[in-house]
């Protein structure tokens, strides 16, 4: 079924009454997700946003609670304020990224209320990629430029209209509010088929990377891989699945807040203990951790590789340390029998 963009725009604008809508817009820094009030603001032909939409579920800087000492009492205030949100124009890689973040913030022992309060109140409207960047490799990660996994509603952009697929119950409720859904013409169906068949041309081989990494904790590869890395967090902060954070207190006299901020494994401070000991004191160990976490530990813990092939880390790296080459390097690394 399809809907004309004109009609879709009307439904979109109507949604702003009940939802905060986050969508890609063109700003001074390329295309990024921001709050929009009107469908006309939405950027249509974009490869992918510069930064992933994860910050709308997991903000870079988030007040968890605030507290105030009054006499002998401590008044604690929950700072979580969440409204209903639509994330519009999410690419398949980022939608999958959110499914992976779900696994991080919910496990047998703990469900993170801050993340899930937002997550449960969020509807994801995904859009297939009509153009594929040379740095994209989602097809190698079991996703595809037209995969609807992780979206509540999935759209395929046909120029003047969208093909609409309601994926989840949440999505069906929103889809029901879309008026004038009509059948696709034969030509449009052919267009949909072409988009659905497209795969990324850039490929990496991750077939055996998890088991291979399991044998590589002590391997000389880490010494050479990390050498040109300058140790910034441009890769982690632009990654839709990186989720490490720090919790700290900001205190002034009798009151304070507890905040959660993004952190990244490339920073030496990340693992610095209060004692002064740092178990990952060398950059080699930090790069090993980055690879292990994404391609080994995460798989062991959650059953998936924590990389969706969006290519943002490749584009944002100041020294062109390309994760695809890092993966190839693991594949080619000679096994050392200890």
């Amino acid at each position, binding site marked *: 079924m399809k809907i004309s963009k004109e009609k879709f725009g009307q439904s979109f604008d109507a949604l702003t009454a009940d939802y905060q809508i986050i969508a890609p817009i063109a700003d*001074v*820094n*390329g295309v990024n997700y921001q709050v929009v009030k009107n469908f006309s603001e939405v950027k249509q032909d974009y*490869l992918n946003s*510069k*930064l992933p939409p994860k910050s709308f579920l997991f903000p*870079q*800087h988030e007040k968890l609670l605030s507290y105030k000492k009054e006499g002998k009492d401590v008044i604690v205030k929950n700072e979580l304020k969440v409204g209903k949100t639509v994330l519009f124009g999410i690419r398949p890689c980022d939608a999958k990224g959110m499914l992976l973040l779900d696994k991080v913030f919910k496990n047998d022992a703990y469900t993170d209320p801050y993340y899930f309060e937002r997550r449960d109140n969020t509807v994801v409207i995904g859009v297939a990629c009509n*153009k594929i*960047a*040379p*740095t994209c490799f989602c097809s190698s990660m079991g996703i595809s430029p037209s995969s609807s996994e992780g979206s509540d509603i999935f759209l395929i952009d046909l120029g003047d209209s969208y093909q609409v697929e309601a994926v989840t119950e949440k999505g069906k409720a929103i889809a029901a509010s879309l008026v004038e859904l009509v059948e696709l013409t034969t030509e449009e169906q052919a267009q949909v088929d072409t988009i659905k068949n497209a795969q990324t041309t850039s490929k990496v081989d991750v077939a055996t990377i998890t088991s291979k990494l399991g044998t590589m904790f002590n391997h000389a590869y880490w010494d*050479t891989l990390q*050498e*040109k890395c*300058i*140790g*910034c*967090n*441009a890769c*982690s*902060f*632009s990654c839709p699945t990186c989720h490490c954070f*720090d919790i*700290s207190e*900001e205190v002034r006299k009798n009151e304070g807040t507890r*905040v959660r*901020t*993004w*952190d*990244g494994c490339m*920073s*030496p*401070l990340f693992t610095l203990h209060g004692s002064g000991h740092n178990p990952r004191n060398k950059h080699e160990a930090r790069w090993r951790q980055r690879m292990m976490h994404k391609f080994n530990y995460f798989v062991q813990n959650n059953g998936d590789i924590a990389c969706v092939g969006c290519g943002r880390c*490749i*584009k*944002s790296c*100041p*020294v*062109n*340390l*390309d994760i*695809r*080459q890092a993966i190839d390097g693991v594949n080619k690394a000679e096994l050392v029998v200890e």
Partner: protein
Amino acid sequence: MNSIISDIRETARQLLADGKVDVVIGYEKGSLPLKATPCFVRSPQDADKLIWDETCENNLAAFATKTAGKKAIVAKGCDSRALVVLMQENQLVKDDLYVIGVSCQGVIDKKKIEAETGEILEAIIAEGKLSVKGIACDKEFNFIDVKDATCQTCRYPNPVIEDIHIGGSVEVPQQTVAFADVIEMENRTDSERQAYFQEQMKKCIRCYACRNACPMCYCSECFVDCNSPKWLTGGVDRAENLLFQAGRVLHLAGRCVDCGACSRACPQGVDIRALNRKLTKDVSEMYHHEAGISEEVKPALNVYSADDPEAFLVKE
């Protein structure tokens, strides 16, 4: 292959074969079009990886302090100035360093190109022109138009120190007005400047790529990472971002060699250099000092002068 590349390779090969250095730090072809990537050559046969062109944008002096052993470094003018400052600040020992100097025509600002062509699929550089195939459109550029902003005002394209020079030298362009860009910024009203920097700081994600790409940022603990006392929260808002950048810029006063590595490293396109350039101009005017142009000239903040603009310092 041009003769500069073959000469760099041959020099690297000889240095390694003769055991004069343990490693040659240079550039190799990157995985993306118009992108070189730093490389570390440790055996003579690997020297063939080395390249040299207008994509060699990183300041390799940033790796000099982190790489153990005797090292040779392929150095542009700005890289060599950074090496001078690092030696003056006792971060590098001259005997451990071999500078392969190469004069630089400037490096390419990829962001400028991508703003017009979209993501770059393929590119060819030849005779001052770039033919770029982009995802949005194909376009031809004159190199001069897409040269990095830093290189457009560069007065040190030729290395200031070197053990060997590869290729010819580049004529130093005569500037009509020194620091024209800073003067333009100074002439704006306070509110215009504030608006400009607020817009810039809004983009910063505090990944610290600028700091880490900078050869002069080698503190074992940066003030932003210090958690006792805690100067900054690590959060991203314009005030905190500006405090981080302002703190860094002040720390670089008289030390910044204006290589532009910070701005090029920034994934968010923050105009970091606008702050650094202002300090460079101030230090130039007040202390008549330019960082890293000579091993003999002492750093601005390390000398006493009776001409010091702060009158209280020279009171008899």
